[in-house]
């Protein structure tokens, strides 16, 4: 039983630390991306970034807590195995969510391009059109 408690503590610390580190990475690098996307409204970029990171925290921590309960660990080996397995689940799910997040960024960038710039650049400069005729 004493092994289980130690495992829980380590798992809890590792889960929160991992989520925080990844969320911070997402936040700082996502900011650059979103700034480019919302050039004309920096407030919008910051808000979107914060909302995305909040969602990331909720999903990851929620999942980490759901994984929390472990079976009996009578020996140190069993406890270690369980801990490593849980951390593995957690990391894989963090990775999946992280890539989904990046896909969201990418899609937002695509749709941003779609509504703004023409697909082709003008090839000539000619006289300006008549105001009326």
């Amino acid at each position, binding site marked *: 039983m004493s092994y289980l408690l130690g495992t829980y503590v380590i798992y809890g610390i590792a889960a929160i630390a991992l989520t925080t580190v990844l969320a911070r990475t997402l936040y700082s690098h996502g900011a650059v991306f979103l700034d480019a996307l919302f050039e004309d409204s920096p407030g919008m970029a910051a808000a979107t970034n914060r909302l995305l990171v909040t969602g990331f925290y909720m999903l990851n921590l929620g999942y980490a807590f759901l994984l929390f309960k472990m079976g009996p660990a009578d020996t140190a080996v069993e406890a270690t195995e369980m801990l490593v397995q849980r951390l593995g689940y957690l990391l894989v799910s963090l990775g999946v969510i992280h890539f989904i997040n990046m896909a969201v960024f990418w899609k937002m960038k695509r749709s941003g391009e*779609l*509504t*703004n*710039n*023409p*697909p*082709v*650049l*003008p*090839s*000539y*400069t*000619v*006289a*300006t*059109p*008549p105001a009326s*005729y």
Partner: protein
Amino acid sequence: MLSITQAERIVHEWPPARLHVVYDDQCELCRRCRHWLSTEPTFVELRFLASSEPEVSQRYGNLAWFNLELMVVDDYGRAWIGPQAFIMCLWATRRWRPMSYRLKGTAFAPLAERFFHTLSANRSVVSGMLGQHRCETGSCGGTS
């Protein structure tokens, strides 16, 4: 001739908020396309300039492609010619904007370009098929 640099985009409003479509109003196909385009909901304001109007031909008559290729001009005189003008017309519409990007994509671009060139070159024939009442030849002075 001037290629658009990053600097020029900053100097003038980009993307353009209004486009002027210089089309051949002696060609039945072009008139029908213009009519269709004028009924489409658009993101940017569209103005149609008939190439036979004196104001228009005075201004653009000296261009080599005048009355041969479709031309789209913005408020600052930046011009798209031929296939690129067709793509800009699609880009202006709400419904066909996604298509305009796809036509520009690598897979479709050469095909679309050839299609628009063929359409432009043979517009008198197509107009003839559409049945034009105001002239017998079907081309109706498209070469004016």
